């Protein structure tokens, strides 16, 4: 059951990603990207990452894509002008580069992680069942990764200030 659902969701995600990079209108592209992100959230649920799935829907499919659509609306890019695809030569280069990269990545997949790094089967699900899905992530986040977490807040502040300075007409 889980495997069938996995293939359905991943099939829809890949097809909508393909539509996202081929649609002419930026609005259509953005909406297909939202579809891809939602289906990725479903894949996270199937991979036992429930908290990450919720954050994916809230932050990616919600906040970030609203920001994209808002900018498209602000710049009035919705109408379909002449296509912005590259010419025949550019398409050939993009296709060949894509297939070469895909082959390389699928070859990397054969290199399994070394056995001594691998946890015993079911350890992650067991931790999530024992402590709850959120606590299981919060514990490493606020213990081992506390300093990166705090630095993240400084980075977000810098991003806010930078975005305001860049987008402002006159300072």
């Amino acid at each position, binding site marked *: 059951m889980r495997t069938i659902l996995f293939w359905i969701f991943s099939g829809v995600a890949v097809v909508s990603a393909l539509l996202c*990079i081929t649609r002419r209108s930026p609005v259509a592209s953005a909406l297909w990207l939202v579809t891809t992100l939602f289906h990725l959230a479903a894949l996270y649920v199937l991979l036992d990452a429930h908290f990450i799935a919720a954050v994916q829907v809230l932050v990616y499919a919600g906040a970030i894509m609203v920001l994209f659509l808002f900018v498209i609306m602000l710049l009035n*890019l919705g109408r379909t002008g002449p296509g912005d695809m590259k010419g025949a030569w550019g398409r050939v280069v993009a*296709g060949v580069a894509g297939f070469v990269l895909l082959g390389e990545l699928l070859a990397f997949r054969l290199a399994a*992680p070394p056995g001594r790094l691998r946890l015993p089967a079911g350890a992650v699900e067991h931790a999530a069942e024992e402590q709850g899905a959120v606590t299981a992530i919060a514990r490493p986040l606020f213990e081992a990764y506390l300093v990166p977490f705090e630095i993240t807040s400084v980075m977000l502040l810098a991003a806010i200030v930078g975005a*305001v300075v*860049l987008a402002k007409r006159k300072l």
Partner: protein
Amino acid sequence: MLLGPALAVSAILFSLGVVGVLLRRNAIIIFMCVELMLNAVNLTFVALSQQLGLDGQVFVFFVMTVAAAEAAVGLAIIIALYRHRDTLNLQHINLLRG
């Protein structure tokens, strides 16, 4: 275990993102393709965290934070660019072309 299939899907999504960046000339669509690549990497992290421990999901959390900051700054740059050049077509934004 869904580890192998998840890594394959992630590889396909990442390659589609790269193809999109190489194929399009609209700056905002190229930016969306970059987001697609970030998401493919997140899928890899989540898939491997099933076997290698929950630290992978913490990393996904950080990647999402960086992506949110990057989207805010990048879209501000795009707005400034559109204001100066009245276009988002990267063919016409070629000050750095050799």
